[in-house]
Structure formats: C-alpha cells, structure tokens
C-alpha cells in the first residue's frame, strides 16, 4: 500500500509520540539512568523531573524511575546536561551492540 490517498499533500505532524518517525535510529549515544543518583528514585516521590521538562522530543515519562523511550530518543544529551545530580550519562551505542544484535 502506498501513500497516494494520504489526506495531506505535504508533511503534517499532529501531537503524539513519534509523529516525526522512529527517530531512535538516529542515536549515537544512549542516555543511561543511575537510579542511586536520581532524585525521584531516591525519595520515591514525584520530584525534580528536570529531564522530563527539558527533553525536546518528549520521550521521558514522569514516572519513578523516569522512563526513556528509546524508540524515539535521538540521543541529544540534553537530559544528561540538565540533570542536577548527574544521574544520566550518555553511553556510546556500540556498548549495547550485543543487546541490539539480539533485537
């Protein structure tokens, strides 16, 4: 099936997860959360969530622990930069090669 009958002539994006496509494949480095440093995890309370606030792609959930949707995370590193306790570090995707191979 093709896109000839698609309702728009051009690109048209409505709010919702991943409307720009599965951009997780763009990622070179992956955000990894250290729960022992993360404020909501440590306090078991809805606190901080600066990563959620700053994520430009809205792929971080305001949950305990904050969950990062790797299907769409482009690996920009803004969450790691903004985290006040340095709980998020950006790790080279090659470190997860084995995991990726397994699908």
């Amino acid at each position, binding site marked *: *099936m*093709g*896109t000839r009958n*698609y*309702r*728009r*002539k*051009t*690109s*048209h*994006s*409505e*709010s*919702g*997860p*991943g*409307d*720009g*496509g*599965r951009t997780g494949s763009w990622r070179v480095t992956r955000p990894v959360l250290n729960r022992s440093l993360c404020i909501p995890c440590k306090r078991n309370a809805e606190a901080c969530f600066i990563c959620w606030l700053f994520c430009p792609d809205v792929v971080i959930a305001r949950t305990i622990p904050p969950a990062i949707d790797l299907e769409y995370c482009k690996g920009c590193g803004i969450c790691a930069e903004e985290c006040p306790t340095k709980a998020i570090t950006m790790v080279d995707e090659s470190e997860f090669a084995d995991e990726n191979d397994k699908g």
Partner: protein
Amino acid sequence: MHIIENGNVAAALGVRLCGVNVIAAYPITPQTPVTEKLSEWVEAGEMKAEYIPVESEHSALSVCIAATSAGARSFTATSSNGLLYMHEQVQWASGARLPIVMCVVNRAVGAPWNVWNDQQDSISQRDTGWMQMYASDHQQIIDTVIKAYYLAEKTSIPIMVCYDGYILSHTYMPFEVPDADKVKAFLPPFKPDYALDPNDPANLNTVTLPDVRMDVRGELAHGYMEIRYLLQEELRGALAVAAETEKRFDEIFGRGGDPYIEPYLCDDAEYVAVGLGSVTYQLRVAVDALRAEGIKVGVMGIKFYRPFPDEAIAKALKGRKGVIVYEKALSYGYEGALASDLKSALYDSLAGTGSMPYVQNFVLGIGGRDIKTHDLTETLRAATKGRVAKEPVWIGLKL
C-alpha cells in the same frame, strides 16, 4: 472601465480586485510602486487587508507563507536581487504547497549593480516548483494576476506573474479594469486544503524522513520523495487547469485565447520567433516588415513558462523551418533556458518525423541594453536563411 495607468498599478488593481487578505513586501526597484499603491489603499481604508511592512524580501515571503498557512489569501512582489534573496522561501512555499501569488517585475541581477530590465531574475527561479506566467502588456498584467489566484488555489501551487521592469511597469497604457462583481464570480473565496487551527494544533512541513512513515493516527504518511513527486505530478496537471482557467476567464470577461501561447501571424509562418514578455510585441513590428517583403514569419509569445506547455508548443511549431528564440536571460555556461526547453519539447514530440525545425538562440536586452527594432528585423531576416550559429548570438554586443 477603461483607464490609462502604468503596469505596476495594473498589477495592484488586480490584487485589490482579488480581495487579498495579507500583503507583505519590501521595496525594490522597479517593483516598489506596486506595493506603495497597495499600502496607500490599505491605509486609506479602500482595501480591507493587513499590510505588513517587513525588513527584507526573505521576510516578505515568510509572512506570506505563514499567512497562507493560516488560510489567508496573500500577495507579495519583488524584482532582481530581492527575488534572489527570497530564494530559500521560494522553494519553501512550493514545497509547502501554498497558493501564493507574487509579481516579479523583471530586472537584471547583480553583479554589477543594474536596475534595468532583463529576465535573469525569474528565469533563475525556474526550477523552484512555482508556476511562471509572463505578461506582454498591461491588460495581461491585471488579467494574469486574477487568473493566477484561481489557478494557484485550484492546484495548491504558488505562481509568479512576471512582467518587464520599466518597459511595462513604468509605462502608461490603456487597459480595462475588470468589474468587481465579475471577479467575485470568477474567483471563489479561498478554501485552503488545510489551514492552521488553534483548536487542533499541528506542525507543518516538519523534518520528513526519506522513507514513508506511520503518523499518529496510524495512517501511512508520505516520505520526502512522495511529497516532491506530488508537486511534480500536480504541476504537470496544472497545464489542464490553466486551460480551464483561461476558458472560464473568457466566459466571464470576454477576453482570452490560447492558455499557453500568444501567436501572431503564425498560421502560415515558415519561421517563428519566440520569446517571453514585451519583446514579443516589439518582434511583431519586425515580422510586419519581413512579411511586407514576402518572408513568411510569425511571432509566438510564451505566456506560460512553468509548467512548460511542451506538447502545445511542439504542436504549434511542428513543420516550421526555423524557430528563432529571443531571450533576455541565459543559463550561464550553456544557452538560453527557453531555447533549451523548446528544443527538448521539439525533440520529444518530433524526433524522427522529419518535421523538426532548427532552433536559433539570440540573447538581447541584458541589463536594459536598448533593443532596436532594426536589430530584431535584421537578425530575424538572417535566421530565416538558416541557423546562424550553434552558440547563442548576443544582439547589440559591442566587444
């Protein structure tokens, strides 16, 4: 109502009659009087529109892009380096499928600085996905603006209405101002394919991946290539819409003809001079002189340049001995773009049929160099004796 006015006023009157909602423009010679006139009318309350003064041509078209995205009928006008400065947004408007109408008052481009007429500015925008129409007199300017809105909105493709700087923009000529009620009958209110709605937010023309994708509703949405293919397909289809537009205009206003070309003494012509804009009217004088000598020549003005009406043009030129193309622009490093386009149309249609005319390319009037009717007559006479040269021949060059 018949009036005597200059070409820029003819364009502005067309814009006013079309009930344009948003005008944004930056002044550049020789376009300036178009938008001055429109701003006067808006300021005086004679025209109900938003006039948005901007700091550059890039911004002028950006404003039109935004206004049209929000469902407004918009207008801008420019010339020369202003159009070149706009180039990024020119591409954007067609890719975003926004039916903007822009008058291009043709002027030479720098370097060196020059304010006089040639057509290098609009020809340099040939491949941007905009439609391009060329007017040869003031009646055509005002009529073409009105047709342009109909055609652009039918196809969701922007259009440039091009006319020669000074030769048409600043000279006075009598023309008929179409009746406002008839324009209303001809041009229905603008109903865009999509208009921004605060209650249903969306991002338009966001980054689009090479391949197709599922959108949030789970429908398969275009990739970049599909969007670009649709523009090409619908530009080719716009030729038929142009024919329908011309017929409709003729029915309502009693003026019209061939939607793509304007022939003069072509029926029995063995040699046809071809051009864009006002030079084709000057060529009529040369043709009259050669006809008096018994040389069978005619002129064909190309009114519609993009999409290129290749089949109509090939049909009109089939069986002629020679096609002589006069151009006020050049695809630098090769030949006139119109000459190349004509050859391509002739080749596709006539290769192997034995009725292929030779094509001679003349370049003239660059940077406002005076075009002498005597030169047109003599070059046309020479070209009726056979192809003068393979390379384009510059008329009036003093090297």
